[in-house]
Structure formats: C-alpha cells, structure tokens
C-alpha cells in the first residue's frame, strides 16, 4: 500500500515510536493498570468502577479495556470545572480549556511531567515533518485557553528550534515577520495558510523573499485538495497533525515523512474506533468514532474518551519504521460541533447566546460559508413580536447584542441577520440549525 516515497528525511524523535508491537502492547497494559489505579479516587470513575466491579488487579489484558466505562464531554461538564482532576491541585502547573456545548468551557489540567510529555509528543510530529534545531517557526495560533498555541510552542522549543510566537491576527504583519525573521516553518490552521497565500498575492510579495520550507497545520478539518493548493501557492510542504484538549492537545497523532496517515502515539494513548451507535469496535479501515484512553497523563487522565471525531484506523506497517497505528483525516463528527476558523463551536452555544437575550430562544439557523480562505458565520434569527420594536435603534441594538453574546460565548464573530417569522427551514417539524456550505464539510 505505502508506495509513496518520503517527502523529507525520515527521522524519529524518541525510540518508543518504533517499539515492536508486542513490547508496545505490554507497555500499554502496565500503563493501563496504573491508570485504573490512579483514577480510582476520581468521583466519576470511583462510582463507575464500583458499579461495574472494576479494580486495577482485574485488568489482565488490553482487551479488558472494553469493560471500562466510556467518558463523554457531558460527563466532563457534569463535573465542571475540575471534577476529573486526579492529582492534588498544587501539582497542577497549567490549565487549558476548550469550548463546551454551552457557555462554559471544558477545563483540562497538566502537571509539570504532563507538560514534558506533551512537548515530546509535539516534538515527535514536528521532527517527522522536517523540523530541525536550526529552524525558526512562526506560530500563528491564538495563545490562550486553546491548546494549539502553547502545545506547538513548547514542542518547537523541545526540538531546540526557535519559536516566533506571532499569534493570529494581522496577516500583513505576519508576512513581514516571515520575511524579516527568515522564518522556515509555519504553524497555523490550514485555512489561515490559504489566507496567507492570498495576501502574498495581493501584496505582490515575490516568493523568493520568503524562506519558508514547511508548515504544520491543524485544529480544523481540511482536505488533500487544500494541501495541494497550500503547497503549490506557498512553495512548501504541509503536514497534518491531530489532537484535542481533553486528550492532551496537539500531539495525539501526526504525519510522518511518508504522509499515509497520522501515527497515533500509542505508548501514551490507547485508541479505539467504534460504531457511534453500538459502541462496538469497527474493522480496521472502517469509518468510526475515535475513542482515546490517556495512559500517562497525570493531572487529567481520561478513560475511553469519546471524541465524536469520525476517522479510520489502519494497522498496516509504515515504511517510516514506526509501529504505531495510523488514523486518516477526520472526516466528520458524530455530534453537531462546527469548527470555525479553528474554533470549536456548538449550535447549543448560539442557542445559549439567544436565550440570554430574551429568555426563550427564537428559531435560528447558523450558516457557515468560506467565501475566500476564511470561514464566515451568519446567524439568521427569526423576529418575534416580543423582540420587535417600531424603533430602528432598538432593532439595531438587538442585533448588536446578539452578536456580542455570540462572541462572548463562542469567541467567534458572527454576522446576525434578523429575518421574518416562519421563513427558516424546518424539516419534519424539527428545526434545522446548521447550514454548512463549506467545501470541506462533505469530505
């Protein structure tokens, strides 16, 4: 199958990446036993383990994983903010968060050792995608609760390369930094890479004024087609990586020099691919929902965390020498989460914003488009008698307030469009909430 040739020199960061499968399995088992012991006092697991009669001693093979309970985003929310913390608070050195399905984020925590592990996991995919200590990398993710910025930042430093923590924002300024600082590599979302290419064209920046060689892109779904565009327009190699804050952040998996899929770091995570309805495993190569068990994370370990991300796993050996399973690009979600410019957005968050205005949410429709490189969101809101006013200033204030509430809850700027009642599509009595017109949505 893997007839491709490497696009960069094939390198490893840590020897664990090529452990023989049997050794890897043994390592996973001992770490799984340890994990079950470590989470036994976390209230959620304590209760589930008691119910299902699970003890660390009862874990005798990797197959026993299937007796363990699943963990969902709803479980995390029920134990908001830190009910899943498995170490004393004083051992935590960092918090991150991701958007929840409502106004509150989901928090995760890291010990000092967790940060070292995380940095190494990011270093693994950065190195396999060409990063060397002599390089300068411009990070154009937001630095904040979002794990993308800090995760990659520490990974780059771990490799010994230089970070330029530019953050997202003014594209012209970012291009100036690339030129002046002789930047070798970019870290951003795929759609922001497309945007950079567009602005380079608009600014008529000659390509040889840039020293870019490669980019590590992530935080949103993209397609092979987008990769080809980015590589051609920027004259670079673009690598994919995957992660989610609940499991660790970026570094859960990443591409190697052969780019046949993303290698999952199985010495730190056990991955399952399940049918989202039956929760039974699907066959190798079949589509299913990814489920992760964090083997080594100390502060915020999770057992069988349901990601809602749809992907495929393949255990076919890879010529790069890594023995780990590979996952395909994420092709969809089993829930209604949207990724807007790299930010996770749930329709229920928009609903929450609308609830804050008037107590009961009116009918609404979230329309997502990608007119150029970047996602745009319009929230259509049906006008109701109680919200309506004969004064233009009141209606404009209503629209602006909805916009502010949405921004406050989701962090994204949405255009708000007030529409007449009964004009938004309802299918079989149930309101349609999302109209995703982006090309990637169907892949």
């Amino acid at each position, binding site marked *: 199958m893997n007839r491709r040739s490497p696009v960069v020199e094939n390198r490893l960061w840590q020897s664990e990446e090529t452990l023989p499968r049997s050794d890897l399995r043994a390592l996973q088992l001992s770490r799984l036993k340890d994990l079950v012991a470590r989470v036994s006092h976390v209230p959620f697991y304590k209760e589930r383990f008691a119910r299902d009669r699970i003890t660390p001693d009862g874990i005798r093979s990797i197959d026993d994983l299937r007796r363990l309970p699943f963990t969902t985003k709803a479980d995390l929310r029920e134990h908001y903010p830190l009910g899943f913390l498995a170490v004393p608070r004083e051992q935590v050195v960092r918090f991150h968060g991701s958007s929840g399905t409502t106004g509150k984020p989901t928090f995760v925590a890291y010990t000092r050792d967790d940060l070292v592990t995380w940095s190494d996991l990011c270093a693994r995919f950065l190195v396999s995608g060409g990063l060397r200590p002599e390089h300068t990398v411009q990070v154009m993710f937001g630095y904040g609760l979002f794990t993308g910025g800090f995760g990659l930042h520490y990974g780059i430093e771990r490799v010994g390369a230089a970070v330029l923590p530019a953050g997202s924002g003014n594209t012209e300024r970012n291009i100036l930094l690339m030129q002046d600082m002789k930047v070798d590599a970019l870290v951003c979302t795929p759609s922001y890479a497309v945007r950079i290419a567009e602005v380079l064209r608009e600014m008529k920046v000659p390509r040889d004024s840039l020293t870019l060689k490669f980019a590590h892109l992530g935080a949103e779904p993209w397609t092979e087609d987008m990769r080809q565009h980015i590589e051609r327009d920027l004259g670079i190699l673009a690598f994919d990586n995957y992660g989610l804050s609940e499991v660790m952040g970026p570094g859960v998996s990443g591409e190697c020099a052969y780019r046949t899929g993303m290698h999952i770091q199985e010495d730190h995570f056990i991955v399952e691919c399940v049918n989202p309805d039956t929760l039974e495993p699907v066959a190798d190569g079949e589509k299913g929902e990814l489920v992760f068990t964090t083997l080594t994370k100390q502060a915020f370990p999770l057992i069988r965390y349901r990601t809602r991300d749809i992907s495929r796993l393949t255990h076919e050996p890879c010529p790069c020498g890594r023995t780990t399973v590979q996952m395909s690009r994420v092709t969809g979600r089993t829930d209604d989460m949207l990724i807007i410019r790299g930010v996770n957005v749930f329709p229920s968050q928009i609903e929450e914003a609308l609830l804050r205005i008037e107590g009961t949410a009116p009918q609404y429709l979230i329309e997502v488009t990608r007119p150029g490189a970047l996602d745009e969101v319009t929230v259509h809101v049906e006008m109701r008698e109680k919200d309506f*006013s004969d004064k233009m200033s009141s209606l404009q204030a209503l629209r602006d307030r909805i916009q502010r509430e949405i921004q406050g809850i989701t962090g994204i700027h949405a255009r708000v469009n007030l529409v007449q009642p009964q004009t938004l599509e309802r299918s079989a009595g149930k309101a349609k909430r999302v109209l995703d017109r982006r090309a990637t949505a169907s892949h």
Partner: protein
Amino acid sequence: MKIKQLSLFLENKPGHLSAICQTLARAGINIVTLSLADTQQFGILRLIIQDWERAKELLEAKGFVVNITEVVATEVDDRPGGLSDVLKVLEQARTNIEYMYAFTFRRNNRAVLIFRFDDPDAAVNVLQAKGINVLGDVELFEEKPGAKKR
C-alpha cells in the same frame, strides 16, 4: 388623542412589501399613510390604517410580526414654516422625537404630521398648550379625501 400605528418587521427582499399591500387590498383596507425605515438587511414598515385591528389580524395570519404603537397626529397649514412651528414647540419643551413622517390632505390644504414620542401623553399636552391641533381618530380618518365628508 393618540392614533394607533401598525409597525411591521420587513426583510429587505423582493416581494415582501408587495405581499403586505396585497393582503390589505384584498380585504378592502385602505392605507391612510405609511413610512418605511430600512437598513441593508431589514426594514420597519409603519402604517396608519383606520381598521387597524382587522389589519393586524390579517397580517399576523400571513406570518408577519406586527406591533401596535401609539403615535400623535397633528395638523398644520401646508405652507413654509408649518412643520418648523411645531418642532419649535417640541424643542422648547425638550420633547424628543423618536421618528416622524408627514402627509398632506390636498383638499383642505392641510398637512398631517405623525410623531412617535417616548411619552405621547406628555407630548400631546405640550402641543395642545401651544394651540397646535392634535388629531384624534375621528378627525384623521374622516378628513381623508374621498371619505364620507364631501
């Protein structure tokens, strides 16, 4: 001495204004006057109609959002300075106008000004104290050209 105004939410899309007018026309309801305030995406249509209750019912049945607003109608001579005199009175009393629109009765050479105030009762007192003719339902709808009074 206040008049009921129908206010409708209107998307800026072809056919929406026409649908409202057709609904009223089919029911034989006459529009005395109207004003339209609009932005790029939406507008507010304000209508003065004698049988406002029936009009509201019909338009709501068609799915429109309709509000009833109390407005004040005053009558002035249709001559230069007619509006200015009224505005001066309001300005002196520091009465804020939310919005206004006007129309004329050609027969009587009189102009009617429709005002939306935050406190219409206070505004009516201010206007009447200065001798400005504030119209009630009877005067407004009966003086319409082509109506009963000939």
